[in-house]
Every structure is written in C-alpha cells, then in structure tokens.
C-alpha cells in the first residue's frame, strides 16, 4: 500500500525517525543540560544558565534592533529618514529609549488592581520568552526541542493574550478595558487560523518536533513543495500572525486613534517597555516560526535531486550557512510585516471578526482537507526523495 511511503506513517516508525535527517543531529541546550545532569548538577546548571541568559539577551537585543529597524523602515516608507542623530544613522536610538524607559517613573493607577497590574507585562514577556525557547535558529542553537513542539507553540502563544487582558482589566480605565476585550476576542479567534495553517505543515512533515519539520524540507521548502496548498496555508499564517501580533491592519487593541493607547494606556516606564519588548520580540518569533514551517528554517534553497543546483546553494561553510539562510528568510518576513503595517489602514471590530470566522476559518479547514488529500496521494513534489 502506497500509504506506507507517506511521511505521516513513516514517522510512526521510531526507527526511521532518527535516520531520516541527513545531517548529524546537534543536541540543543536543554538536551546538553539533561545529558550533563547524569554527571552532576553543576553541569546542568551551567547549561540552564546559558540558555536563560541567551534568551534574555536575545529578547532585549531583539527589542532594540527591531524597534530601530521598524523606525528606519517606517521612515523610508514615508519619504523621511527616521532616527539620525543618536549615533551614526541613529543606531543608538533604541538604546537611548531603553535606558530612558528603564529610569522612568512607573505609575500604578490608584484604583486599579495592583497585583494584576504589575503581573500583566510579566505575563506578556514570559509568553514571548517561552516561545523564543523553541525557535530553531540553527542546528543546536535552540533552547528546547521537544517532541510536541507545535502543540507547545499553540499552547504558549495563548499566554500572551492573558497578559494583555490582565493589563486592560487592572488599569481601571475604560479605554484599556475596551482594548483588552478587543485583544482577547481577536487573538483567541485568530489563533485557530494560525494553528490550522501550521497543521498543514505538520501533516506534510509528519512530525510535531520543529527541528524535524525543518529536516523534512531538505528536498525543498514546504511552501513550494506543497503546491498551492502550502501557499494558501502560508498566507493564512501570515494574516493570522499579523493579527496575533496586534499590528496594522489588526492593531485594534492598541488602536491609537480610537482607544488612545488601548490596553497599555496606563502603563509607563519599565512596564510599558515590557509590552513594547514583547511586541517586537513576538514579531521576530512569528517570522522565525513561519520560516521554520514554510521556508525551510535554516536550510538553503534546494530542489529535490538536482545535485548541481543544491551544491551551489550549499556553498557557504556549514557554520555560517544555517545562520545566513535563517537570517535572510526571517528578515524578509519581518520586512513584509512592516510593509503591511505602514501601508494598510485598520479594520473595524466587526469586519475583523467577519474576516476570521467567515473567511479565514472556512478556507483554513478546506485547505486542511485538501492538504490531507495531497499527503495521502503523495501529490506533492519529491514525496519519496527522503
């Protein structure tokens, strides 16, 4: 029966799981920690600290770099220059913003719920950090690589909305509350589309582990190997992730012109910067995940068995190659999301809901069924090349 040849069932066989990737598997930070734990607690602690510090550094650096890029990109979209004065071409601008926010007074609203108010930004940034842990940058440069990675992503990304809801609720401000309620409705709705879009790739690759999803794209990225199905899924993913990120055209929770500041109206100083950081780090995370699922993660551009072409693509040394390919794909996606932001106006709440429940969701399900058909019949490009 030809069903055996599909990756979905092939994955069920534990023996073939490890054999499939051509490259040798590099252990992630958490795996190293687990290995070190057998020899003593200090080795494990060392790796845990490395992982934590790395994630924290990555979050703060991402916040700085992304906000700088965003302001520069916005500037050039709008026929102006953007930050210019702080450092050459203003590269220290976000550093100055960061230090300023760090030393700015943090105000707590008098009648608000203080505990929740303080907790909300922490929730928000925690969700981002947890998500960052699973982002595969290059073989081994990944904090955790769990076997249920995709489920983990779907679960953890829901925490972010919790932070926003808490922030809006505890601010004792009607605009904040409106923003938070909008955020809740919007993010929970769009999470469905997001997950459905990812499920298409899970079906194709037959695994929930993100590193294996990348390995399954050795023959070519899913976005073009999966015919139109993957492209539709990719578009769904982009739209849904823009909504998840609360960026224009889905920036209703913040909606400056409507709700002054939305859920973070009452936040100042460091707490506001947490929301700010989470937003920009999330931008990276969602682009990185799109890269992972649809664009082959750290893998170079390969076409099936065309050895010559593939070798040209592999020309970079193996240490730089994954970082280069991951970086370039991720940057392109981030730029695309910024392009959206500086072009589109905002949707209205009812239009937003209509788009999700009446357009994206039916499309997503239809696409999912189509994807299942494609997988079962092995219609996609190079189905048996692995």
């Amino acid at each position: 029966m030809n069903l055996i040849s599909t990756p979905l069932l092939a994955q069920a066989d534990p023996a073939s799981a490890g054999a499939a990737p051509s490259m040798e598997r590099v252990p992630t930070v958490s795996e190293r920690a687990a290995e070190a734990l057998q020899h003593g607690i200090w080795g494990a602690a060392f790796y845990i600290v490395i992982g934590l510090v790395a994630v924290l550094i990555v979050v703060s650096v991402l916040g700085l770099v992304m906000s700088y890029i965003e302001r520069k990109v916005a500037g050039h979209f709008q026929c102006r220059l953007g930050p210019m004065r702080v450092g050459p071409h203003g590269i220290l601008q976000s550093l100055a913003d960061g230090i300023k926010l760090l030393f700015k007074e943090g105000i707590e609203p008098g009648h608000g719920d203080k505990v929740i108010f303080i907790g909300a930004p922490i929730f928000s940034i925690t969700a981002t950090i947890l998500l960052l842990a699973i982002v595969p940058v290059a073989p081994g440069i990944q904090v955790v690589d769990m076997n249920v990675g995709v489920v983990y992503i779907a679960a953890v990304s829901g925490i972010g909305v919790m932070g926003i809801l808490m922030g809006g609720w505890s601010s004792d401000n009607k605009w904040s509350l409106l923003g938070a309620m909008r955020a809740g409705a919007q993010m929970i709705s769009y999470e469905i589309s997001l997950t459905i879009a990812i499920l298409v790739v899970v079906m194709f690759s037959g695994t929930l582990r993100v590193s294996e999803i990348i390995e399954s794209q050795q023959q070519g990225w899913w976005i073009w190997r999966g015919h139109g199905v993957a492209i539709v899924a990719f578009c769904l993913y982009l739209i849904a992730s823009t909504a998840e990120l609360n960026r224009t055209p889905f920036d209703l929770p913040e909606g400056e012109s409507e709700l002054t500041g939305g859920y973070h109206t009452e936040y100042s100083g460091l707490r506001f910067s947490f929301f700010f950081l989470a937003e920009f780090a999330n931008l990276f995370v969602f682009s990185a995940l799109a890269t992972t699922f649809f664009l082959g993660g750290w893998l170079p551009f390969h076409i099936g068995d065309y050895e010559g072409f593939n070798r040209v693509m592999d020309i970079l040394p193996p240490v730089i190659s994954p970082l280069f390919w991951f970086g370039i794909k991720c940057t392109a996606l981030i730029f695309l999301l910024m392009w959206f932001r500086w072009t589109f106006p905002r949707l209205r709440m009812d239009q937003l809901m209509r788009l999700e429940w009446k357009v994206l969701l039916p499309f997503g399900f239809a696409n999912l069924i189509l994807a299942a058909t494609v997988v079962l019949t092995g219609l996609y490009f190079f189905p048996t090349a692995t």
Partner: protein
Amino acid sequence: MTVEVSSLKELVEQASGTSGSPDTQEYFVNMGPQHPSTHGVLRLVLKLDGERVLRCIPVLGYIHRSIEKISEHMNYMNCVHLTDRMDYLSSIMNNWAVAKAVEEAAGIEVNDRIRYIRTIFAELERIQSHQLWWGVLGMDLGAFTPFLYGIRDREVLNDVMEETIGARLTMNYVLPGGLMADIHPNFVNRVKEFIKYFRPKLDEYDDLLTNNVIIQERLRNVGVLSAQTAVQYGATGPVLRGSGVAFDLRKDHPYGVYDQVDFEVPVGTVGDSWDRYWVRVEEMRQSLRIVEQLLDNIPPGDFLVKKLNSKIKLPEGRYYSQLETARGILGVFITSDKKDEPYRLHYRSPNFNNLWCLEPMIKGDYIASLIGAMSSLDLVIPDIDR
C-alpha cells in the same frame, strides 16, 4: 413659562439612570479633550453599550478664546488677523470673508487683479487644507503613511505660498481693500510647477487610500447623513455636498472671479463617509482646474485700492458676507455703530454647524465608525469654539 437650565452633570446622571437589558451595563466614556483623533480639544461624552455608541454629546469650550469679544475692541484691520487663528487651515479664506464684509459695507470696489489673486490663493489653500485632511483621515483610520504623504505635498505648496506671503500657516494675506503684498515674480511659474507635480500625486493618493479595500469597507455606508438631515442640521460645504445637495457659494452666489471660471461641484449620492471623502478628493482636482484657468490671466494693476487705515469706519447697519471655505460657509456678521470698532462681530463658522451632524450620523454604530465619520466631517475645533 419657566425655563430650565441644566448642566452636563445632570444630563449624564439622567441618562445613566436608564439601563438597557439587565445583563449589560451601559457606560459613559470621555473622548477628549486630549484624544488623538478629536483633532484638538473636542470632547465627546459617549454613552456606550459595549462598543456601540448610544449617545454622543459634544462638549465644547476647551479652546473658546472669546474672539468675538476681543473683536469688539479692535479696529477692522486688526479683526482680520484674528480670523487666521480660527480655522487656521483656511486662513486666507477667513481673511477674505472679513475683508469682503468690510469692503461691501464701506463700498470699496477692488480691482480685477486683487480678485484674481484672492481666488487663486483661496483655491490653493483649499487644496492645502484637503491635503492635510486626507492625511489625517488616513491616520484616523489607522494608516500612518498617508498622513506623511499629505504633509509632504502640503510642504511643497507651502513653499509656493510662503514665497509671496512669508508665513506658513497664519497667512494674514488678504486685507480690506486689497492684499498685504503683491505676488512674487516667481509665483506663477512655481504654481504651474506645483500643478504639474501634484496631478500625479493625486493618482498616488487614489492608489494608497481611495482604492484600498479596507478604506472602502470602513467608509462606505458609515455615518450616513441624508440630504434632509444635513440641511436641517445646518451642514454646509463638502458635508452638505456629500449628502447630495449641490450647494456651493462659489457657484450659487459667486464672489471673487468664480463666475469667470469653469469648474464642477462634486456631489455625493448616499451621504455616507465615503461620499464626503470622494467629494473632497474631487474638490482638489477642481481646485487645480480653477487655478490653472486663472493663472495665466492675472490682469495688471495695484494690489491695494484703498488707503490702509486702521481707523476705518463703517456706516451704521448690519452687514453679512459669506464665502465658501474648505469646510463650508463662513459667515461674517458685522453690526456697526459708526465707530472704528465693530459693535458686534459674529462668525458663522462652518465647523460649528457641521459638528452637530455627528450624532444623527453615528448613533448605534461602533466607536471605530465614529472616528471615521468624524474624520470625514473634517472638523477644526478652534473654529467651532472661536
């Protein structure tokens, strides 16, 4: 018969007593005086049910500078400069309105050159005002880039006007009896250059906003104002024309040299925000047409026909003159008692009357629609409050 005088507090308390269904709570929200999309310091007290606007009570006076009282202690020449600060986006037209009233009262006949130049500047300023409105509308609907495009083109026009007038915003160019200064020798050529520059830009505007699906979704069938309501609520200018009433002082009671030029008055059909948007964008094209026709035919002559005298006295009586600014009819009501200061000077400001269309337009609609509808009214708050 006793007359009851109420206060805002009583009104709100009265209204909050009546609640709808038992499981929802209606609440009041202050929008403004400091709110990014009230274009200044308009305050709207909104009664909301969720996101639906049940009542919208505009509260004015946050920029009531008592211009009418000050004018009673000023001579007619000085009154002109205060009008710059009312509707600062159509300052030349405001100047002209006062100048026209004084000229008609004092029996001063201005020459053709003055009339031509006044008309050209009024039309240029109409374009300028609409450019800013276009950008701000985009910003209110969540697209930030149109705002900067609008400002960019506004600056180009500003340069042209600044060369002659010397000011960027409060022009104070038109005086009773003529103009402040003659046009710059370069003026004609630079305006021609501007027209050549701006025509393609108008198409770019269409690409960016007019043809955008989201903008159309946000504006169509939102804030519908029937022709009857518009007339009853005293709307004039593009608001009235958007509702399908082809009333334009430039056509119906021509002043300046509008009777010698060929132009069309764009009129909407439905009366929704989209029609008002379209009317204004089309007005920019018509203004370009008017300027083009006049530019080559400016007759020679003096730019002042009457001695500038701050002690100018008007004969006793009531004088009313009105003209079409970028927002509607500006009326100037002068009551003179043979002194050099007006006994009473009243401005019929277009925004004041247009504002009241807001509540019938958006009752029962979403907050987001309120923002769009308010933006399509193109309010300038200092003109409302005076």
